[in-house]
Structure formats: C-alpha cells, structure tokens
C-alpha cells in the first residue's frame, strides 16, 4: 500500500472520524478498514495505530463488535456503528467542515498579496 501523501499528524487527527465513516458505510473488520483507508488515500495505516483506536472507540460506545470464526484461522472481529457512534460521526463531520473552512479562509491569499 502507498505511503500517505499527508503528514502523519494530520492522518492521526482525522482517523477517528474517518474510521467511523468507513464502518458506517459497511460492517468491517480491522484489516478491511486498513485497506479502505489505503484506497481512500490515507496510505498504509499501521496496526499499531488502527487497533488501539478501534478498541478505544468500542470502549467509548461508538462501535460495537462481534467475532466471526474463520475456517481454521483466528476469525475476524466485525465492527458496526452504534447510535452513539453515528451521533459522534455527525458532530465530527460538522466540526471538521467548519475547521477546514476556517483554515482555508485563513490560508487563502489576501487581496493585498494578490
């Protein structure tokens, strides 16, 4: 999987909301979420970053999980978005949109500079 084009700090900040969004779109397990993030342009998200985040989101009640046995393997832990998770994602999306709008407005060149 390609390296992320974004600074690591940016990815870390965006990750909780993005992971919730991936799980909202489709019931997913860790490795699948990592792949979806890679396809979405977040690069290779390490297991050491993703799984503690999933555990934290589950402990907070934003995600629920069930284990499904695999054939001979350790199985997969599937995550689904809870009602609280949906609420958190909505709040996150709204706040993120406001933040990026504010940031873009400040970063845009001023008339004097043009």
């Amino acid at each position: 999987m390609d390296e992320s084009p974004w600074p690591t700090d940016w990815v870390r900040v965006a990750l909780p909301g993005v992971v919730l969004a991936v799980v909202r779109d489709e019931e997913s397990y860790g490795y699948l979420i990592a792949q979806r993030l890679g396809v979405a342009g977040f690069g290779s998200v390490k297991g050491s970053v993703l799984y503690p985040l999933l555990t934290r989101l589950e402990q907070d009640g934003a995600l629920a999980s069930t284990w499904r046995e695999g054939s001979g393997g350790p199985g997969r832990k599937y995550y689904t978005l809870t009602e609280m998770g949906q609420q958190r994602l909505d709040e996150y999306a709204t706040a993120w949109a406001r933040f990026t709008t504010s940031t873009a407005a400040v970063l845009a060149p001023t008339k004097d500079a043009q």
Partner: protein
Amino acid sequence: MTGKIDDYVTELTEELSLRDVPPEAAERIVREVSSHLVESGEDPVHAFGTVKHYADEFASRSRTRRMLVPLVILSALLGSGSALMVLNGIFGFINPAHGLWGLEPLTRLVIGAVLFVCLLALIAVMTVHSRRRLSSWKL
C-alpha cells in the same frame, strides 16, 4: 511466518498480563493482532511495532512491574532470611550450643517472624496494587 506470529502473540499475551490488562481484554487484543497478521501476511514487528511498544498502547508499565526484579530479589531475601532465623531459633532452643551471630534463640525467632510479616506485607501490597489496576483498566 506462522512461527513468527505465534512468538509475537505469545510474548504480547505475557506482556499484557504483566501490565494488569484483564485476561478477557488481553485475549481480544491478541486475537485481533493474530487475525490481522494471518490475513495480511505482514511481519508482526513491521505492522505492530515491538511487543513492548504495542503493549504501551493499551497499558503503561506499572511502577511495580518496572521494579519487578528488585522486588523478586527483596522477596527472596525476606523469605530466606525469615526461614534461616526461625530455624536457627528453633535449633537454638533444642541445643543451646547452636548459636548464630551471638543472638538468643528467642531473638532469632522474633527477627524471623518480623521478616516473614514484612514478606507477607510486600506480597499483599503488590496484590492489591495489581487488582486495582486490573479492575480500573481502560484505554
């Protein structure tokens, strides 16, 4: 690769247990690591970092665990010292010629008992500390 995964998850299980992560939570963490590694075929250390580094994400090393080696040595000294003094005290009562550093048999028994109580207190403190961390574990 399977051997590498087995070694990694075994070491991770031990490390999480040492850090007082509840067994059922540790099992879920380890099983998820195993699931990811089997599916992705990635190298464990490349995907998750070293075992200690990954365990840090779930529980910091407690002061007791960092002091584990000195605590084990202290416990061994207290235990063996206690046994030595108590046995010498008993032998001193049976045979007054049996001496130790010029101490009376009763004094030896008392010192042995005090050392034993110190050992029990140390074990109790470590157990209570461990239980508290176990019951309050949260990411």
